[in-house]
């Protein structure tokens, strides 16, 4: 018997005993008409009791705490008869006097304080690890303020979001406060246009959210990390952020981007740094349909591959078709398509005239940056597609695949970096990305040209085979002449008649040389094949990171393990090997020798020298590889440490 069971029995005793009593009377076979009887709340309120039994409160709360009155009531013989009769006839029982202390259904305005009686009590909440500032937070919320100041009970109170008798933990997927149900819970009021119009609020924000990148990730992909209403607005203290705060709200998750925006020309004026102005329906200050501006690299690759397949590699139309496709994708905006929300003829305000010239420059620059981004996206997709196509062919393109991952990292990092609006630096980044793509392509070209000599070698091989065959046939005829006689015929005329000894010697000599050549041609590749390989890595999952000698403390050496970028660091506790693929979105992290940390260029994540997450969004540490030293050689084993 565990403590929880005992306490459950004790706390729910009113309910239990009542049920037990009813059961006993039924079992006794006596309907007990016209006899006094003890009843508990569930006897008359079975629906509520059932809901309550499934709720989180079943152990800690019982009915009188919210409703007043008693757990158990003694019925007189008449009351009992009336109750049993109404139940038999399935009609509403007569009003029952619950006593003086009975409060009945609490008024909506009193609900927050009522819940607060327990939820503000630190001693009571401590065992459950629940916060006790929720009521205070509520009074600061838009809902609470209106309730307190105007006594307006149309606003949300505790029960609207948590339920009444059927309150569940937010970890329960059926709960109204489970992350995936929050939009529907808020939408219960905020999607009600009639109700919202009374407060001069839009009734379509939940709908907008559902179609936003966050809503799609949360509701369609079930991504718990994607924000719901409460993530941005708060839960108990729910309130819309002011324009100046929007950037910070988004920055809770998009730290790196916030940093860039604040350092940018737009960051100088807080109001201009609000993300919602550009990401989504432009110009709408209450925009909830927040959109990606640029598709993730996987989508770029997919789009490119599709386009390439359809156009059969028609290089001329490839980029224009790819660009056009990107424009039609959800969550893909040309950056310059949003500039005119603020910069342009529609600009409101008295200074519109003043900005005409600068607006033109801004729009030109926006177009330039957009083109640069599109080129970067195209170059990445083209390279990644080429690597993917070649990866299962006849060439080993593992190093190129690792470099393509670098390019992918640059793309994601560039997306964030665009928020600096720092044109020269952005163009530099694009160039860096293009340089990586160029390297990969050059390397692939080199490998492919390596293939052409195989094709070219067909000509000499066939020339050799044809010549050999012709000469051998000649030799065959001569041999046949020399060795085979028709039955009863004399020996054939000496071959010299047709073939002079000199020519015959030449034929024999040629055939011998060719035969030796053919043997050499067969044995040479086999010999080269057998010679020990200079560079190991593929067949074994063990990759050498080089000699231990001369390896400085905290120095990093990069290598590819199982086709993925990895690094070995000489730490003060020996060599350690890590995968360099960020556990957040798969960007490639960089080792900082000075701070002994890995930094991810995409979202500013930082990992420690043991691979652990120090800051930023990654869900887990960098995977570690086993590193061993074998005779001064540092060897990484492909299997990840668990």
């Amino acid at each position, binding site marked *: 018997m565990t403590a929880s069971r005992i306490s459950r029995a004790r706390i729910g005793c009113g309910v239990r005993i009542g049920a037990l009593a009813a059961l006993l009377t039924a079992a006794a076979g006596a309907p007990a008409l016209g006899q006094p009887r003890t009843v508990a709340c569930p006897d008359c309120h079975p629906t509520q009791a059932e809901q309550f039994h499934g709720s989180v409160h079943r152990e800690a709360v019982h009915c009188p705490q919210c409703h007043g009155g008693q757990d158990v009531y003694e019925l007189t013989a008449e009351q009992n008869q009336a109750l049993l009769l109404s139940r038999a006839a399935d009609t509403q029982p007569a009003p029952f006097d619950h006593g003086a202390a009975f409060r009945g259904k609490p008024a909506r305005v009193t609900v927050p304080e009522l819940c607060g009686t327990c939820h503000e009590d630190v001693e009571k909440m401590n065992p459950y690890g629940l916060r006790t500032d929720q009521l205070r937070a509520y009074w600061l919320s838009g809902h609470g303020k209106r309730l307190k100041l105007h006594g307006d009970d149309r606003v949300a109170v505790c029960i609207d979001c948590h339920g009444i008798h059927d309150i569940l933990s937010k970890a329960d997927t059926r709960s109204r406060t489970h992350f995936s149900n929050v939009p529907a819970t808020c939408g219960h009021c905020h999607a009600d246009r009639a109700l919202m119009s009374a407060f001069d609020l839009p009734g379509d924000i939940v709908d907008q959210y559902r179609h936003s990148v966050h809503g799609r990730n949360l509701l369609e992909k079930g991504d718990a990390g994607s924000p719901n209403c409460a993530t941005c607005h708060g839960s108990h203290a729910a309130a819309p952020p002011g324009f100046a705060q929007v950037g910070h709200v988004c920055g809770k998750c998009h730290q790196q981007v916030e940093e860039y925006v604040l350092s940018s020309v737009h960051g100088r004026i807080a109001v201009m740094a609000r993300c919602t102005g550009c990401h989504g329906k432009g110009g709408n200050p209450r925009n909830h349909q927040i959109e990606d501006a640029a598709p993730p690299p996987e989508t770029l690759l997919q789009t490119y591959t599709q386009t390439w397949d359809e156009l059969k590699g028609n290089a001329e139309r490839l980029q224009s078709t790819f660009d056009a496709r990107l424009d039609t994708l959800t969550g893909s905006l040309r950056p310059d398509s949003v500039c005119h929300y603020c910069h342009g003829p529609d600009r409101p305000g008295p200074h519109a005239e003043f900005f005409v010239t600068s607006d033109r420059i801004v729009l030109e620059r926006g177009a330039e940056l957009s083109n640069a981004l599109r080129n970067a996206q195209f170059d990445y997709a083209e390279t990644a597609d080429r690597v993917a196509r070649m990866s*299962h*062919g*006849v*060439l*080993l*393109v*593992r190093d190129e695949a690792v470099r393509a991952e670098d390019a992918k990292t640059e793309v994601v990092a560039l997306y964030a970096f665009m928020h600096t609006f720092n044109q020269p630096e952005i163009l530099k980044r694009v160039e860096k990305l293009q340089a990586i793509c160029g390297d990969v392509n050059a390397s692939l070209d080199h490998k492919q040209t390596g293939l052409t000599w*195989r*094709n070219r*070698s*067909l000509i000499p*091989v*066939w020339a*050799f*085979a*044809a010549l*050999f*065959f012709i000469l*051998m*046939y000649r*030799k*065959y005829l001569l*041999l*046949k002449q020399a*060795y*085979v*006689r*028709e*039955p*009863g015929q004399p020996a054939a005329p000496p071959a010299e008649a047709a073939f002079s000894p000199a020519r015959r010697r030449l034929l024999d000599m040629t055939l011998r040389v060719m*035969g030796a050549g*053919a043997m050499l041609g067969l044995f040479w*590749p*086999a010999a*080269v*094949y*057998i*010679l020990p*390989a200079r*560079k190991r*890595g*593929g*067949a*074994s*999952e063990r990759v050498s990171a080089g000699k231990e000698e001369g390896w400085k403390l905290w120095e990093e050496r990069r290598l590819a393990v199982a086709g993925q970028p990895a690094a070995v660091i000489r730490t003060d506790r020996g060599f350690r090997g890590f995968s360099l693929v960020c556990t957040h979105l798969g960007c490639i992290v960089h080792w900082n020798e000075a701070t002994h940390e890995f930094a991810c260029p995409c979202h500013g994540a930082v990992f420690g020298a043991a691979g652990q997450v120090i800051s930023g969004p990654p869900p887990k540490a960098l995977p570690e590889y086993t590193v061993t030293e074998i005779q001064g050689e540092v060897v990484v084993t*492909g299997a990840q440490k668990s």
Partner: protein
Amino acid sequence: MAAEPKRWQLYLDTRLRYLIVRDFLHKQLYKRLPPQTGWAHVLGSLALLTFLSQFVTGILLLLYYRPTLKEAHESIQYITGVVPFGWLIRQLHAWGATFMMLAVVLHMARTYFMGSFKKPREFTWLIGAGLLMATMVFGFTGYLLPWNQLSYWATTVGTEVTGAVPLVGEQMREILLGGPSVGQEALSRFFLVHVTVLPWVLITLVTLHLVLMRVHNLATLEDVGREKPYPPESGVPFWPVHMAKEAGVAVVCMAALFTLAVTSPWEIGAPADPLNTPEGIKPEWYFLPTYQLLKYFSGSWGKPLGILVSGVPFLLLFAWPFLERGPGRRPSRRKWAVRIGIAAVVLALVFGILGYVSETTIRLAGQTIAIDMYGVPHLHALH
């Protein structure tokens, strides 16, 4: 006879007694083949040549191949992409399998249509049929070893057939795979059979085949029991006359093998993924007729029946020398045998082609034609 032994040869022979072997081999080498020996008679040696090529390239591949789930595909990548000439060795081995099969089948067809299997060469034929089987098992076991999607799924589908045998089928399949599905145990078993068991089986059978061939010499087209002895000087000596012809053919054959290795190489492929079945999984061409034939049988009775029916051609193959016992060897004297032979070839071709095009879509004259698993084309309206 070989030339008189020189002094150093006598010195060695006193101690090694090797001259008797040398003389025996010399006699074998210079043995005269019948005067009718023609170009069609090079096919047997060609099969031997392809086998030798497989033997050598196979040993070379073993240097770097590792038969484990973790390393099999990695090692194929390594052989194909890193080891110098690894690509060539692998391609020669992969295409060599097709060449070997082709040579064996053509050699068998020649033997059949020229009636060479008749008395006294019935057992030579039997061993030959065994060699065909061994070659097929070689192909089947070797196909799994690269451990890519194609090989994994072709093997999965291929071994499903065994499971359809009544009563013992499931057990047979599990013994074959070493478990309920294709995994490390299956890879180990296939590898073991491919590199240790089958080579010995093949060497033994080839040796017996060659010995019998030498004992009975090549068959002519003369009727059984009416073969006229030919004067020795009119026979074609195996060495050097017949060999000259074969050397020419061999070089052309190797060049063709090299051409295929270069122009249509076998890909490294995506690593085997047991959770993701790719589309259009087909067995190797020499299994296509059986594969297609089996499709027409389904259900709990149909499947065993299908196995029975597809086994008939192979049973006939083994039993044929004892079924067709007439003396005629010339095709004109064996009209029915030739008709059956041609029918078998045509059937194999038809089922093979049906199997090849089944479950594919082809575009013909602007129409998209989808061919279902039974090889029946369905016209699709253009989208």
